[in-house]
């Protein structure tokens, strides 16, 4: 039940969104999401409620963080 699932918003109507979870579409409540969301945004969803908008710049920041963490570990790091 505690599994959070990221999905992408397809439609917004009032406090409800239709969210795509890798091909499965579900209604998601937007009552408690942390900031305003719109079509195309990614959200983290728990038991039918979006609890976080995942901003594209935050994704980029995380990937850069992984890159920095694995630096200097020899040739095993890919391009």
């Amino acid at each position: 039940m505690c599994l959070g699932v990221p999905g992408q918003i397809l439609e917004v109507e009032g406090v409800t969104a239709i969210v795509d979870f890798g091909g499965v579409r579900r209604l998601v409540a937007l009552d408690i999401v942390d900031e305003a969301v719109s079509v195309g945004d990614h959200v983290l969803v728990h038991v039918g409620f979006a609890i976080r908008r995942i901003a594209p710049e935050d994704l980029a920041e995380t990937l850069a963080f992984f890159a920095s963490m694995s630096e200097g570990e020899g040739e095993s790091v890919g391009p």
Partner: protein
Amino acid sequence: MTGSATLEFRDLARGRALQARLERLLAGAGRSVTVMHVCGSHEQAIARYGLRARFPAGLHVQMGPGCPVCVTDTPEIDACVALAQRGLRILTYGDMLRVPGRALSLEDARAAGARVDVIYAATQAADIARESAEPVVFFATGFETTAVATAAVLLRDPPSNLYVLSAHKWVPAAMEVVASSPDTTIEGYLAAGHAATITGFGLFEAFVAKHQKPVVVAGFEPLDILSGLVLLVEQVLASQAEVVNAFPRCVSRDGNRRALGALFRVFEAGDGEWRGIARVPSGELRLRPEFAAHDACVRFAAELGAAPAVALRADAAECRCGAIMIGRLQPTDCRLFGTQCLPQAPVGACMVSTEGVCRIWHEHGLGAAGASA
């Protein structure tokens, strides 16, 4: 998140580099390091991606009280079973069905004719009640991530026949119990990223200051966990204690203030027993008196009070879930694990839920002869 981003979070080369860094840290330390994660989703990812077998010798990663199903105490299950046996319609999350009470689970009650239905979203509880003329009881369980959803449902003009039986819990309170245990061997904590999405990482600063143990907030992809462990082990070995946010794509310092606001408008923290662990101060989330009209404990007080006492099933006395959940024992230290206690016939709650450490170890063959645990 896009498919390509998901794959980047599982990049094999980066994963191997992080493993190498962990190995180097442990080899240079000349001693073992014991840390705890506090989330069933972390254990699932560790098992699913085979990370545990690749942890360096000397790195011990214990699972703490991070499975909400596992810490739901037997009297809470018994209360719900009692209401189900009185003929009330019960709605709950699927994980709760097979959790044993003192004698029966909700699934046992259902097999005997009780009406117990599984829901996947908290909003379904209100939707189902709205279509019904009779009282509907939502057995609401889980940590802050699901508690905020229950709160939002009760703040959204719920139907008058919807009653919430709350077994919601507040996970930072359990970390406090583990860290305060006088014989704890835990040197640092990997905090659950999704719960911290709600609470914010700033919440852990007081914990770190008090216990002088580092906390790293981590996500659930393999690279999240490996990089979180690197940051944690580095701090342990340097005798540092700070809060580090290794899950910035979901966690901020202040968390989700809107969700937290909803949570504490509806719930207040109270003391309560966590199954097999201890009395956890401020670990329970109870409905505030303003929501008494939707509180199953208030509406059905007479029914709950009249429920006959039930004897504990005999084999439960040997269950070691409590010691396993505070990191003192591993699943394989329990005599019942994989013999009398199996996913299809669980004795302890840790074998029930897909977030329970015993269930995860059993399903991934950990602890079997020759397997690396």
